[in-house]
């Protein structure tokens, strides 16, 4: 049977800060590579790496860095940030990404999803959707790292992206992200129940129970988390022990 995936997310902004004053590419990879190596040694189910300032800075993805990372990564690798055209997707796949995550450019150019799926297969196209919840409870998709309004309803947008050929959806709650208050289960459930492709829940995990809720009540196929792994003693392996005890099928190794 298919297992629920526990996916550490690595946000590239940290690296951006490190490189701030320098142009020494070794140095910035240097801080990313150890993390990749640790996760690789621990045989995590999958990794998501997102360059969150690429779009803002109007940069292309950094293919050289991905190439170096992929050399050390023998688990599935999803790469996102700054993907604006099918040539970017191609170069990322060539550099060693297994899946490419696309977010902001889908709004202005939804064709990128259909063309990408046609050329490389739906299975390597992940559409990432950042969702903001208003004070009155209405949901809206935001782009450019949550800075720009799109007017899109997340459920409708998720369905459109599925129709266009997305193979997977990465749903992040902007308000919950980093707050460690749990995933937005209602949002995850609404989207999971409206599509037939896998949904990865993201944003807000504070403990293993949150993951359990996203996988059961939220109907997610996978859970992504960053803060919980970066800033606490919690690990993907422990998460699996917890989930396994509660009856969730997780990968054993």
């Amino acid at each position, binding site marked *: 049977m298919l297992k629920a995936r526990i996916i550490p997310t690595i946000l590239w902004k940290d690296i951006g800060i490190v490189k701030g004053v320098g142009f020494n590419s070794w140095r910035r990879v240097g801080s990313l590579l150890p993390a990749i190596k640790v996760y690789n040694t621990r*045989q995590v189910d999958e990794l998501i790496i997102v360059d969150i300032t690429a779009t803002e800075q109007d940069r292309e993805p950094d293919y050289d860095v991905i190439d170096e990372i992929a050399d050390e990564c*023998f688990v599935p690798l999803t790469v996102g940030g700054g993907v604006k055209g099918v040539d970017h997707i191609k170069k990322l796949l060539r550099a060693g990404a297994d899946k490419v995550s696309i977010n902001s450019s889908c709004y202005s150019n939804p064709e990128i999803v259909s063309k990408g799926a046609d050329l490389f297969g739906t299975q390597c196209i992940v559409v990432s959707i950042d969702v903001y919840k208003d004070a009155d409870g209405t949901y809206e998709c935001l782009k450019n790292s949550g800075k720009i309004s799109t007017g899109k309803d997340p459920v409708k947008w998720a369905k459109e992206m599925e129709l266009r050929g997305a193979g997977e959806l990465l749903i992040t709650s902007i308000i919950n992200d980093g707050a460690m208050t749990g995933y937005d289960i209602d949002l995850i459930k609404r989207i999971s129940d409206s599509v037939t492709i896998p949904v990865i829940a993201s944003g807000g995990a504070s403990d293993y129970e949150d993951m359990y809720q996203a996988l059961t009540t939220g109907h997610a196929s996978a859970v992504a988390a960053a803060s919980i792994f970066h800033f606490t003693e919690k690990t993907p392996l422990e998460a699996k022990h917890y989930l396994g005890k509660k009856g969730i099928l997780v990968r054993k190794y």
Partner: protein
Amino acid sequence: MSVLIIDYGMCNLGSVKRAFEECGASAFISDNPRDAEKASHLVLPGVGAFGDAMKNIISAGWDKAIRKNVLEENVPILGICLGMQLLAEKGFEGGEHLGLGLIQGEVIKIYNENPGSTFRVPHIGWNEIHKQQDHAILEKLQPSTDFYFVHSYFFKTTHKEDILTTTHYGLDFPSIVSKDKITGVQFHPEKSSRAGFQIIRNFLSIN
């Protein structure tokens, strides 16, 4: 030992090469079918659509080189993911396309034999392989080991004898197929950590 990773313009070959190197093999990527003669083992990777892949393979002349080396020279070949599906006679991804025809059967979309459950396609993630018969490629693997899958189509073989393992997702589909020295794996050994390396080492042991 010299492992040739076939480059027909469809995917990430770097990870495959690195995984073979990690397993102690000397591996090289080539887009020139004439290099096939220099290889002790062939690897046919692949991500993407069946039809486009076959078009690229044929226009580069890989189909002839593969058939010659595999069928006449008995060189072991490992098809990975789409590369495994291309071993089939036919594929039905976006129309009907001819495959390499090295193992009898066709490639069709994953479906659920018992509809009604939450069933999502593509089949993405870690899933178990269940042994149907012994084979060198399965040496030193624990029963029901998890491997990483990412695909929407599967290889429906004509002959049961060609199925080494099955995996359950909606239905039981062949996850490793083999005939003579031709082997295909639906999952990605290069992305399946240690268990994946074991598959690669086992493939290298086939001479």
